[in-house]
């Protein structure tokens, strides 16, 4: 291990870590007793978690010891791609090509603006792409935006689908698409930023956030750790809000044709 920041952490020996896997045996025993038949899934999840973390640990170690701009950008691109694909995969509704384009655009715009503002401005690291800072922070912003946009997308698509007759009824009375459907964009926006707001409200009382806990475990003073935590929370709030705002505000328009008709992908409305 290198780096002074880790000096305070108590190292877990590999032997003791192996002991941790005994807990999995306990889990398997309990699962068997409850006859849920998920033994395979539990084992696979444990193995995946282990392998993924080992790989990412060595990968980050490698990247941090040889900081390079192109590697940082590549990692960011991989994160964004994975996040966007995950949004598409998670949602039950078919999305039009235009809506997918809106999701990609919102995701990139929302996260990139905040990543650069955060690193360049609030943390003020030089160079701005220093991987030790850039990668974990970008990861948190992208991850939270991904959750927000999935939720917003789901709410927007279901809101418009479930109220299709009402939206059409309004269009038939001469409403603009905005008047007829903006309400569902607003509802989706509100629902998608709510978890972030709730997390801020409970922070420090209901739970100690992961980043801060990690810094404290690695020896940082809690008073310093909360500065980072506050900064990242503000960053997450901004990234989620910008992403979801763009997605809902541009997204509801993709449900209307140029001649102002409501179009639902997979036409089952009429």
């Amino acid at each position, binding site marked *: 291990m290198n780096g002074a920041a880790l000096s305070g952490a108590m190292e877990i020996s590999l032997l003791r870590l192996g002991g941790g896997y005994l807990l999995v045996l306990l889990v398997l025993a309990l699962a068997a007793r409850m006859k849920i038949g998920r033994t395979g899934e539990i084992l696979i999840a444990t193995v995946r978690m282990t392998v993924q973390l080992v790989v990412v640990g060595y990968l980050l170690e490698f990247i941090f010891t040889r900081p390079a701009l192109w590697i940082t950008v590549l990692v960011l691109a991989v994160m964004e791609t994975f996040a966007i694909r995950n949004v598409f995969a998670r949602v039950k509704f078919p999305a039009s090509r235009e809506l997918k384009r809106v999701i990609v655009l919102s995701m990139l715009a929302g996260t990139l603006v905040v990543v650069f503002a955060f690193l360049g401005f609030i943390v003020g690291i030089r160079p701005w792409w220093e991987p030790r800072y850039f990668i974990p922070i970008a990861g948190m912003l992208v991850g939270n935006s991904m959750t927000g946009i999935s939720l917003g997308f789901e709410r927007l698509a279901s809101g418009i689908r479930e109220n299709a007759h*009402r939206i059409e*009824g*309004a269009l038939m*009375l*001469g*409403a603009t698409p905005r008047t*007829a459907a903006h309400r569902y964009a607003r509802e989706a926006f509100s629902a998608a930023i709510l978890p972030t707001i709730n997390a801020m409200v409970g922070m420090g009382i209901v739970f100690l956030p992961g980043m801060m806990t990690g810094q404290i475990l690695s020896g940082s003073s809690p008073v310093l750790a909360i500065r980072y935590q506050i900064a990242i929370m503000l960053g997450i709030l901004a990234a989620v809000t910008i992403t979801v705002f763009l997605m809902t505000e541009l997204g509801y328009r993709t449900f209307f044709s140029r*001649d102002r*008709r409501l179009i639902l992908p997979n036409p089952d409305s009429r």
Partner: protein
Amino acid sequence: MRICFPPECGRLLDCPRPPYYGHTVENHLYQFSHVRVRDLFTIPDLAVRAGVVTVLRGPSGCGKTSALRLLNRMTPADGGSILYRGQSLESLDPVVLRREVVMLAQNAVLFTDKVRDDLLAGCRFAEQPDPDEKTLKGALETVRLPKSLEEDPGTFSGGEKQRLALARVLLMEPPVLLLDEPSAGLDRETEEAVFSVIRRLREEGRSVIVATHARDLEQLGDLEVLLFREARLERQARLDRAEPERLPGATP
């Protein structure tokens, strides 16, 4: 007295000079030629006159709703041309068109949880000024809906919701009104409300186009009838006079 155009129609028009179209030889509200909607139906050649009540008749599923939706651009045509007051329908802004050609869907939609706001919804969507209290109450009377403006329409029956929706479009004073099965499966009160709304709009010189699978509207008399026959929409006949004993209210 003028000759209707195009000449194949050849009818002498007794035009009451309605206020909503320029009174030219082209007394046509809509003109269709070679229109096709998916594989559903075609409209080879047809005109819909302004200022009269036109009935679109045909069995369920023949495309009556789609034919109505063609008229306000809620359904696109897949070929052919449609003229509205002599202008190509596609050249018109759909939102502006729908403020003039107002459509009432078959299933009444509620937009709010108060009768007053639901009545005002149409005017607000179309960005018209709100009618005053007296006008709102008058509209409820016209559609025979004796409810307070403060009530929650969520508890209304299907017929009452439909009458509320009728009052809403009446308040918009549309030059052209499209009605899709306005009283199908609903109560007698609603049917009479539909008749009185249609009669009133006709008296005011407005155009009404009604899709229905029943013959119930015949008692209104003086109708243009368009019929779906083998996936084609054609002109059938003009019913000039209702038999007096079949008028609602005349029967005991």
